[in-house]
């Protein structure tokens, strides 16, 4: 009797632990992963899903919210385990793009639907070697906060914030010299802020590769990066600008230790108290030689191994359509990636708070933004670390920027050959 009971128990455990049936009760189940939207946006996501399910009675959507630090690893594990979700708000895309595991959206999405998306976002985070593998979702365009009190203390006109990167670095240096505070709260670590390759892109040095070799070892790239090395050495940037510590840049600014904070919008005002709010102003992000503002973009991808590619792409297009993106933007200070939503009067409404001011500055710069996407070469994750290491050594005074770029060139070309 006992062996029989054991067998029944084992069978029960095995059947209950087996993966969910994607075609349960004749309905297709789509698994939809988001990043850290949690309880705050549960009503919005569930409402959107309910609408979609009502319009598509053959589809059921299962929503899974994953934390930002885990999503890339979990997605990777699901792909390896041959049980991927169907629609994923993916992060760290270069890891996946190079192995051809995602659905090509240039092929899966009709030209009419593609035309509804802003071109810079369509050819943004998911763009890899001539094709787009992602559906652009919500986005942010950088603006800048600055502390008027520190500007005045440094002898700068608080009504004349910097317009260009060079002016920002120069003013930052003056602030450091005159007040002892950091000029700019800026991150250079690849995992957080604007790493060396993004500095080059911001100043118009792009692309970094020409066929089977890199072009990074050039006098122009040296000159661009040398500005940042100087800024780091003279204390314009905090020493931790090179470290991987999330949110420190916000803290340095809020605690009055740094004068300028390039940022993604107005949501940080929730950390401002009334007295601090009186000291700060929002302005446009300083422009580099490229003349455009850096933007970041959340995207949805569909794994090729999804058993419901067609339905998954359709659901992804629904989540990222004009109506749903605009509704999302009304809930939180984010920006849309579709043309019609971006042109909505909502983004030109008279600001009521300084957070609104910041958001309206970001929104006005949507057409003048570029998505801060890395180069589309195989093995980029490793190449990015190499660039960071050599650049950081130059910043730390261990080598010249010329030597750093020569070493990057040698190592990158070796890796290109190895791939």
């Amino acid at each position, binding site marked *: 009797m006992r062996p029989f009971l054991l067998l029944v128990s084992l069978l029960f455990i095995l059947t209950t632990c087996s993966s969910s049936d994607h075609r349960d009760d004749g309905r297709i189940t789509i698994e939809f992963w988001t990043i850290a939207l949690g309880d705050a946006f549960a009503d919005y996501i569930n409402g959107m899903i309910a609408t979609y399910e009502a319009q598509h009675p053959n589809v059921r959507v299962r929503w899974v919210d994953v934390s930002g630090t885990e999503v890339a690893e979990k997605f990777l594990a699901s*792909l390896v385990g041959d049980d991927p979700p169907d629609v994923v708000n993916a992060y760290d895309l270069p890891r996946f793009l190079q192995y051809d595991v995602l659905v090509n959206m240039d092929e899966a999405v009709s030209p009419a639907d593609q035309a509804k998306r802003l071109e810079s976002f369509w050819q943004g985070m998911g763009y890899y070697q001539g094709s787009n593998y992602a559906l652009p979702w919500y986005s942010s365009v950088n603006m800048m906060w600055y502390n008027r009190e520190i500007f005045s203390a440094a002898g700068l006109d608080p009504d004349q914030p910097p317009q260009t990167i060079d002016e920002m670095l120069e003013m930052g240096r003056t602030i450091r010299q005159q007040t002892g505070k950091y000029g700019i709260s800026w991150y250079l670590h690849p995992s957080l802020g604007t790493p060396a390759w993004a500095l080059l892109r911001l100043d118009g040095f792009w692309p970094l590769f020409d066929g089977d070799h890199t072009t990074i070892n050039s006098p122009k790239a040296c000159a661009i990066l040398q500005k940042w090395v100087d800024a780091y050495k003279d204390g314009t940037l905090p020493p*931790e600008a*090179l*470290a991987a510590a999330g949110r420190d840049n916000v803290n340095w600014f809020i605690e009055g230790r740094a004068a300028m904070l390039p940022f993604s919008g107005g949501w940080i005002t929730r950390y401002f108290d009334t007295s601090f709010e009186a000291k700060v102003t929002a302005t446009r992000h300083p422009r580099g030689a490229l003349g455009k503002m850096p933007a970041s973009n959340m995207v949805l991808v569909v794994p090729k191994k999804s058993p419901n590619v067609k339905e998954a792409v359709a659901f992804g297009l629904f989540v990222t359509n004009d109506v749903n993106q605009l509704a999302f933007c009304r809930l939180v200070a984010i920006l849309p990636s579709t043309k019609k939503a971006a042109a909505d009067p909502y983004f030109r409404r008279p600001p009521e708070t300084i957070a609104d001011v910041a958001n309206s500055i970001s929104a006005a710069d949507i057409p003048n933004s570029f998505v801060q996407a890395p180069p589309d070469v195989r*093995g980029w*994750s490793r190449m990015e670390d190499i660039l960071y290491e050599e650049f950081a050594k130059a910043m730390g005074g261990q080598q010249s920027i010329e030597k750093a770029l020569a070493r990057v060139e040698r190592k990158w070309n070796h890796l290109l050959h190895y791939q």
Partner: protein
Amino acid sequence: MHSKISPYLFIAPGLLCLATFFAYPLLDTFWLSLHKYNIFDPPEFIGLENFRRALDDELFWRVLANTLLYALIVVPSLVVISFFLALLLNSTLTGIKIFRTLYYIPVVTSIVVAGIVWKWIYNADGLLNALLQGLGISGPSWLADARGVPQALVEFLGFSFSSPWLSEPAIALFSVALVTIWKAAPYYMIIYLAGLQGIPVQLMEAARVDGASWWQGVRNVIIPTIQPYTLVVSIIATIGALRTFGEVYVMTGGGPFHRTNLLSYYIYTLGFKYLEVGYASAVSLILLAIIMVFALLNFRMAGGDNTGSA
């Protein structure tokens, strides 16, 4: 018949677990180390190329040196500090159990929580530097400073010369090692405490009657008596130090300039970030070999008997 099978049945669950979670992954790691494999494409057999690549990999040697240096800082410190902590807590004071519990808290604290708290302490504008500021000392950025500790001391004393001999260990590596020591010392303290409580009271009393001071008693009675415990502590601490991952993952990400990049973290980066699974497997096996060498050395020093019979 039953009596012959019974012992095997008893050890079968354990063997099954060992085979599933140790033997199979080990064999699979060995198999993967002979292949070029990125998870998505089929593995490509390349023989010992991954091991040869490690020999040519500048970063591998840097990381290996960091790991050995790290063990060199952590293991002796743990042996000494945990021993003296145990001596301190091996008394009959009222409420000593509360102290023992309090001292044990770092061991049961998640490394993620501990790492985040220590990051705040180590920040350039953090608690540690605020305390040093009170003493008139301008502290470095503890987790971002790549200078060597000896070099920083030389500069602190007002000298301006620098030398490659002064460049190790980096301040950042030393700072990470301190967190490991803080977190692990109470665990080893408990092992020592068990050893100390096994020493007959008469031994120390006899030494005292013979005129030995407290320190002479510790040096000539306690330390020789608990030697087997010291060997156990050094073996476990060495293996633990060589496998350190959490502190690096949470606090530094291997930076600055790979000065805190340790083998376990490097393997993780190779496997999960760069998806160079074959190469990561080869480096894992090299780490395994290093750990086995150190474990064997310790075991030989213990005379093959580290059963802790005090």
